[in-house]
């Protein structure tokens, strides 16, 4: 059962299993981040707009949206993936494979980003907003030219944080048939007692996280 792994064998695993799965993960993550960035942004804008201390408070709308976001938040990612199977099947036609995993991961990442962006936007100095009002800026101008502008560094670090969190989440999705580096680690590594594959996958995940953090830091320094 425990076969000895030679270097040739390892190269073979890399070529056939691990490297393709890295691409699957990156592609999956890319789709999740693009979609959730867009949706999260829109949601965050609405939240910041109608929050009790936002630009034009609309308590009821805020309460409802906030409640929905909190419901999605309270699901552990694995449960959310399973719970959303009907939605996923409706949208993608299947519940297996990276395409299917994009749906629940996007839903989850959207609420995560929305909360981060919302707090980044609302952190804008109140007096700064008042100053903008004092020269006649409209709420929309205040949102885009003042709050968003000032929030860019927090937004960048929020995106970095989310990307890293959802690298981890994508590997959990791998456990329930999403594909990618996570499922290689579980199916071919852990469940096949193949430590070479398991730990190679772990190292690769580490490297992916490090690179993401590094890129995030560089951009953060640039926009500060």
């Amino acid at each position, binding site marked *: 059962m425990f076969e000895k792994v030679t270097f040739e064998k390892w190269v073979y695993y890399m070529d056939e299993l691990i490297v393709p799965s890295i691409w699957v993960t990156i592609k999956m993550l890319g789709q999740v981040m693009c979609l959730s960035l867009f949706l999260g942004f829109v949601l965050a804008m609405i939240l910041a707009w109608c929050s009790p201390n936002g630009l034009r408070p609309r308590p009821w709308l805020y309460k409802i949206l906030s409640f929905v976001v909190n419901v999605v938040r309270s699901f552990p990612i694995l449960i959310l993936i399973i719970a959303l199977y009907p939605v996923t099947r409706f949208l993608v036609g299947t519940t297996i494979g990276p395409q299917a995993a994009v749906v629940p991961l996007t839903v989850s990442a959207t609420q995560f980003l929305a909360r981060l962006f919302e707090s980044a936007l609302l952190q804008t100095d109140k*007096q700064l907003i*008042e*100053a903008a*009002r004092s*020269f*006649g*800026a409209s709420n929309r101008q205040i949102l885009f*030219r003042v709050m968003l502008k000032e929030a860019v560094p927090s937004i960048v670090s929020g995106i970095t944080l989310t990307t890293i969190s959802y690298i981890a989440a994508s590997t959990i999705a791998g456990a329930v048939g999403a594909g990618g580096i996570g499922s290689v680690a579980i199916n071919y590594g852990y469940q096949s007692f193949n430590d070479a594959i398991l730990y190679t996958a772990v190292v690769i995940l580490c490297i992916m996280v490090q690179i993401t953090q590094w890129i995030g830091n560089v951009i953060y320094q640039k*926009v*500060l």
Partner: protein
Amino acid sequence: MIEINNLHKSYGSNEVLKGISLIVPTGSIYGLAGGSGAGKSTLLRCVNALEKIDSGILTVDGVDVSKLSEKDSRTFRKNIGMIFQNFSLLSRMTVYENVALPMRCWGYKRKEIDKTVKELLELVEIPEKIYSRPAELSGGQKQRVAIARALTLNPRILLCDEATSALDPRVGKSILSLLNDINQRLGITIIIVTHQMSVIRKYCSSVAIMEQGRIADFGATDQVFLREPQALKNLIGEEKYVLPETGKNIKILLPDTFAKSTVITEMARELSINFLILEGGIEVYYMKEAGNMIINAKEEDTEKIGSYLKNRGIQFLEL
């Protein structure tokens, strides 16, 4: 001209402004003094419609502020610049972009913005900082940027909310002389909200002292300071003199024209009386000087002194 009549404003059950009536003449530098929580900042925000008033009348150059729609009040605010204690600049924009922001919001042409921004940075004397970030500037320089930004839309009124409170006295002074300069050169009405009485005394032509949502006293700055009403004493918070208990203590107010005259010694000689001089001094007010002197005279001389001062047209108070 800003006319306020019986203005009320509450936050929930907390009434912050309890019937304010005030007239701010065009072109003046008007001081609004008061302790914290007196309602002076709220009153200031009512003037440019940042705060809605509950009742009363507030007109700015004939425009009834309370009747403006949201859209109209945005346009209305173009006429009124505002600066703040914490400068309120965007930290991620350069000085140029900060000053240009109001004009960009109102869709001015690039060329026009460029010209105005450069002119205004000349006016506030920091043209060399045009591409700096606020973080690279000192407090005084930041306030100068804020002043330039407040002037971009060519306002007729400038509101200053504790604009010098975060600055050290020397820098504060330079900002105030800049404001004075702007008032003189551009004819802009300036309202200064502050708790620093030295600011009011030297830079404001008139003052209103607020206490717990009411105007406790108001008038020309030198008059108010010479009269020293209770509201002013409360604000300064010190008992100034220890007075003798025998005889009569008389406070003589020496306005502008008499401040440097020899009226006191003339009086002594002409009436051939003696009295104690307890305290006196000349203080510099907005574009004039005024003095006051406290003397202690014998009971029987009081009447003589009174009629002498009256004849010369000098105000006095028996303490």
